C-alpha cells in the first residue's frame, strides 16, 4: 500500500448526496481479475454519454477542476461492497475523498488502499464546495500526522478524526493482513478453546 503523509492539492467538487458505488464503478466493469485499470471507468455513466463521448457537464471533464482530492456530498460510497470503487478512485489519481459522511464498507475499503476518507461537518463541506466553485485553484493541505485539513485561503485549520491504528497503517503503508498472519498462535488457541464450534 502507498504511504500517505501530507498532501498539497487542488480539489474536484461533486456535490451530490448518496453517491453509491454503482456510480463510482458500474457493475459491468467489475469483470477484471486484477486490481489495475479501473480508473478509466470511474464514474463511467456520468462521465460519458451512451455513445461513449465525454459528457461536458460532468466535473471530471471540466478542465477548470483538477487535483487529487474529491469533495463529494453526504453518504459517499453507499451500496455495494465492491472494493473496485476504491481502486477506481485511486487509479484515477485521487488520494483523498472529503465528505460529511461515508458508508462503512467504502470507508474501510478506502483505508485498505491508501485512499483517505476525510469526514467533515455538513457546514464545512458546504463551504469547501462553494470555495472550489468560486476558485478552482484553491489549495488544500491534508496533513494526516496532524489530523488537520488546512485551507490556506481561509487561514484555517480544520481538524478531522481517524482511527489511530488506520492512521499508522496509512502513514507506514502497511495493512491488516501482516498483523493478522502474525496472530496465528492466538487464533489457533482461540479455536481450541471455543465453547461452541461450527
Amino acid at each position, binding site marked *: 500500500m502507498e504511504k500517505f503523509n501530507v498532501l498539497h492539492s487542488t480539489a474536484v467538487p461533486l456535490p451530490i448526496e448518496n453517491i453509491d458505488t454503482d456510480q463510482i464503478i458500474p457493475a459491468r466493469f467489475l469483470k477484471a481479475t486484477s486490481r489495475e485499470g479501473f480508473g478509466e471507468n470511474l464514474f463511467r455513466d456520468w462521465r460519458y454519454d451512451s455513445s461513449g463521448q465525454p459528457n461536458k457537464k460532468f466535473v471530471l471533464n471540466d478542465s477548470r477542476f483538477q487535483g487529487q482530492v474529491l469533495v463529494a456530498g453526504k453518504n459517499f460510497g453507499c451500496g455495494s461492497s465492491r472494493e473496485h470503487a476504491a481502486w477506481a478512485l485511486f487509479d484515477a489519481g485521487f488520494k483523498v475523498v472529503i465528505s460529511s459522511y461515508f458508508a462503512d464498507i467504502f470507508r474501510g475499503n478506502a483505508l485498505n488502499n491508501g485512499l483517505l476518507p476525510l469526514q467533515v461537518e455538513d457546514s464545512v463541506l458546504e463551504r469547501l464546495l462553494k470555495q472550489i466553485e468560486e476558485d478552482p485553484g484553491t489549495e488544500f493541505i491534508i496533513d494526516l500526522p496532524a489530523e488537520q485539513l488546512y485551507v490556506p485561503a481561509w487561514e484555517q485549520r480544520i481538524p478531522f478524526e481517524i482511527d489511530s491504528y488506520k492512521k499508522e497503517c496509512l502513514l507506514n503503508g502497511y495493512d491488516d493482513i501482516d498483523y493478522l498472519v502474525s496472530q*496465528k498462535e492466538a487464533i489457533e488457541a482461540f479455536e481450541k478453546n471455543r465453547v461452541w464450534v461450527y
Partner: protein
Amino acid sequence: MKKKTLFDKVWDAHVVRSLPGGQDVFYIDKHLIHEVTSPQAFEELENRGLSLFRRNQIVATADHNVPTRNQHLPIQEPLSRSQVDRLTENCEKHGVSLYGLGHPYQGIVHVIGPELGITQPGMTMVCGDSHTSTHGAFGAIAFGIGTSQVAQVMASQCLLLSRPKRMRITVEGDLRPGVTAKDLILFIIASLGTGGATGYFVEYAGSAIRSLSMEGRMTVCNMSIEMGARGGMIAPDETTFSYLKDRPFAPQGEQWEKAVAYWETLYSDEDAQFEVEYHFNAASVTPMITYGTNPGMGISLNASVPQKVKASEQASFEKSLQYMGFAPGESLLGKPVDYVFIGSCTNSRIEDLRLVANYVQGKKKASHVEAIVVPGSKQVEEQAKAEGLDKILAEAGFELREPGCSACLAMNEDKIPAGAYCVSTSNRNFEGRQGPGSRTLLASPLVAAVSAVEGKITDISQYLS
C-alpha cells in the same frame, strides 16, 4: 452480570483478542466467496506466499456473472466466462468447495447458505458482497467485506474490527393482508434514509418480526445495508430451528440437540442497552414502491412522489426524478411498466415464487411487458418445477429462468434497456443498476406480479384478501 444484546453475545464469543486501540481480532466461522470479489484476494495471497488458513470454512459459488439460460453450455460472454473460470481454478488449486454451474447446490450465495443449513445461529459470516446481511435472519453476525478483507480472512480466518454501535428496530402488530416483508423493509428504509443506520448493527424485534417466516426475515435482513447498517439480525427461535432441521449442513443427532441448547441462549437480555431504538407499527405499513434512485426513496404504492425535500438533498432529489422521468407530487399509479424482474438475493426464494404463481394463475401478463422470474438457486428452481409453478408461470407468460443474480445488477446478459421501466423485487434502484439508463422501481413480488399482469403500476388493494 451485565445485560447483553444478541449482537454482543455473538460478538464476544468471537473475539480472539482485543487490542489497546479498541479493535478486536475477530474470528470468522464461515466465509462465502463468489467470482467477482475473490480473484484479487487469491492473487494477494499468492503474491505474499500465503496459503488458506482454514479452507474448510470457505464455501464458493458462481452467481453474479452467470447466464440464466443454457447454463449447461459454456458462458458466452468472454469476461464473465474468464471470471467464473478463474474462480474454478482458484477453488481447485486451494481445495475450496465450489458449487459452480451444473452443481445441484449452485445459486446466489445468500440463498444457498441458508437453504443448505450452512448458515446457523450464533455464527460469524462474511462475504465480499454487501447483502451478506441476509444471513443475520438466523441470529448470525453476517456482513459484507471488501476484497482486501476477503484476503485477510483467507489468510487468518480473522478480521481486525472495531465493534459497531447497536440499534434495535421493533415492529409490533400484524402486517395487513398483501403487505409483505419486502414492504416492511422498504417502509423502514424510507423512514430512516439510506444513511440512517450507518455505523450500526441492527437487531429487528417485535411481534411482527417474530411472525415472519425465515424467508421473510431474510428479506428484511438482506436490505439492512440499504440504510447503511453493517448488518441486521433477528434472534433465533422455533421458526429458525424448524427451518434448519435436517438441512444438509445443519448439525445432526446429538450435535443438533447441543446446538439448539446453545442457540436458545441467543437473544437480547431484558434491559440490554442499544445506542438507538426505533419503534414501528406493522399495521401502518402498506404495499410500497420506490420512485427514485436509492432504496430510501420509497412511498406507499397509493401515495405521491414528495413535493420537496430538505435543502441539502434537493440537488440529489431533482437529479433522481429527472433520471426516473417523474415529477414532484406525481402519483405512480397508471405508469406503464416495460419489464418485471422477480429474483435477486432479496426475493428469489420458493415463497416468493409461490406468491407470484398463486397470483398469476389463470391470468396473463400484459403483452408489452417482459416478465422474468429468476430463482435464487438450483434447488429453488427444482422445487418450483416439482410444485408445478413453472407451468403456471409459463401459462401466464412469465419465463422461469435458471438461477443467478441476473438483472439485479446486470453483470450477465439480463439487462434493462435505457429508459425502460422495470418493477423489480431486487434491492437497489441505483442509476444504471439494471443496465445503463435503466429505471428501476423496487417492490414486493406481489406488486411486481400485479404490475406485469396490468402492464402498469396498479393499486393492489382490490387484490388483497
